């Protein structure tokens, strides 16, 4: 494997030509590109394939909506406070609530919930 041998040897001792490196990297990038291209194609095909038979049964409205969906449009400050308390109690650690919102469009809502969870989960509040 022409470009791997020098590397193998090099990793043991000495330095390596820029051109070899350039080729090495180009191949690397091309491999990433092609592989993710292939993935993109596969995904599209799958999506097409699935779009034929109804997946409704198989994908119930995401559960997270359920609870919030129950709340009426305007949430009384009282409820707001209680949710706060609930969060406070349930997380057992200092914590600030950004906002409690009720939502019409479930579609949009799914995103925002998603977004909020994402951020909440992967970062602490500041």
């Amino acid at each position, binding site marked *: 494997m022409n470009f*791997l041998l020098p590397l193998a040897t090099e990793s043991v*001792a000495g330095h390596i030509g820029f051109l070899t490196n350039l080729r090495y990297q180009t191949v690397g990038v091309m491999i990433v590109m092609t592989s993710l291209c292939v*993935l993109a194609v596969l995904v599209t095909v799958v999506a097409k394939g699935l779009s034929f038979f109804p997946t409704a049964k198989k994908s119930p409205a995401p559960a997270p909506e359920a609870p919030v969906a129950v709340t009426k449009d305007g949430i009384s400050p009282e409820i707001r406070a209680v949710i706060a308390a609930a969060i406070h109690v349930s997380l057992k650690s200092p914590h600030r609530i950004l906002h409690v919102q009720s939502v019409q469009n479930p579609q949009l809502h*799914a995103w925002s919930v998603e*977004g909020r969870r*994402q951020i909440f989960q992967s970062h602490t509040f500041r």
Partner: protein
Amino acid sequence: MFKDFLDFFTLTGFPEITWQMPVMWVVCLVLFYLAVYKGFEPLLLVPIAFGALLANLPAPALTTEPPGPVLSTMSGSVVEWHVAPGAMVEEGDLLATLQSSDPEKPELIEYRAPSHGQITELAVMPGESLQVGQKLATIFSREPGGLFYYISRGIEWEIFPPLIFLGVGALTDFGPLLARPVTLLLGAAAQLGVAMTFLAASFMGFSSGESASIAIIGGADGPTAIFLSAKLAPHLLPAIAVAAYSYMALVPMIQPPIMRALTTMPERLIRMKSLRKVSKLEKLVFALLVTVFCILLVPAAASLIGMLMLGNFFRECGVTDRLVKASQNEIINVITIFLGTSVGITMTGERFLKPETLMILSLGVVAFSVSTASGVIMAKILNLFLPEKINPLIGSAGVSAVPMAARVSQVEGQRADPTNFLLMHAMGPNVAGVIGTAVIAGYYIATLK
């Protein structure tokens, strides 16, 4: 009585303070400041900085190896033993003089004890030759190894990064990616920064293994960076980890200028039509597809990719709430503490206060910038072919750094048009970048090991 005081003083760590220590304490303070008051990835930087603080206090007992067989770290031959069986040795005591067989530098090496205890065996006689990993002697003691020796097994054995990825997978929603598969290419393009940095690093004289580890900083995936450098350049691990995590926090500063420089106002104004809803089944199929395809492509990254998609499968299948919860919280939180501190504990002054560290930090900026640029440019290229244009501002999200890069796209988008919401569109390339980085990391391991 006062004399006793002095006696005790000799047992304390004060006499052992070296000039590097206070310097490193300042470095730690800077990291603490960035983490606590500037919000630089505190979940990682705080443990890393605290570990570094411990690493730069004269407390060898924290990291000492447990007693047992002493495996030679070099090839050569034994010239002379300085201890006899039954002798008590302290960590660092002179054991033997070895003659290195390395053609480059065939000098005599003073071989020192890796742990404390009693010599129960000398396995190689003077004059005999020995090779790397061969048993040189055996040391016995009832004392265990240091706390961080054991915790660090998680990095040495490459267990922590995949477990972190299990949690990351359970926290990641690939929906936006599936709703617009083309964004996978943006995640791929961002890896160009990695390749460029490899060239730069190699050109600056780093070995291929080191270059790859440094370059991966551009991938903006902490766990992948730690995984790769633990394999290919363990001695650079601390510097690389610090760069990887602090730059992730610098994303909001590094990216915007580049994004603006490379895009025209009309491009920044492009509105993308809202994403279709992706079915549970699609997400599950995707998780399995990525697992099979990517592991077939780069088996060396199997543990990273496998755990990432396992966590994601848990998340999407909707019938394993308990496991999702465990991955998203217990596992990722606990491992983060251990990962961070055991990365920090390797950050001793001798290792960190070197010109290499500065070179790595600067190369890291290059990596991030090029990745950002190539993501944006790829988006513009795609627009030449795509019927419905994508806003090039989401290209920069290809560097992953989930979800910060995506938020940057959102912010920049709104600067151009306050009513334009790019966040969810940017999540596509954002998560694609994670896969892209895992693939190129696998490529490096496969070719350099």
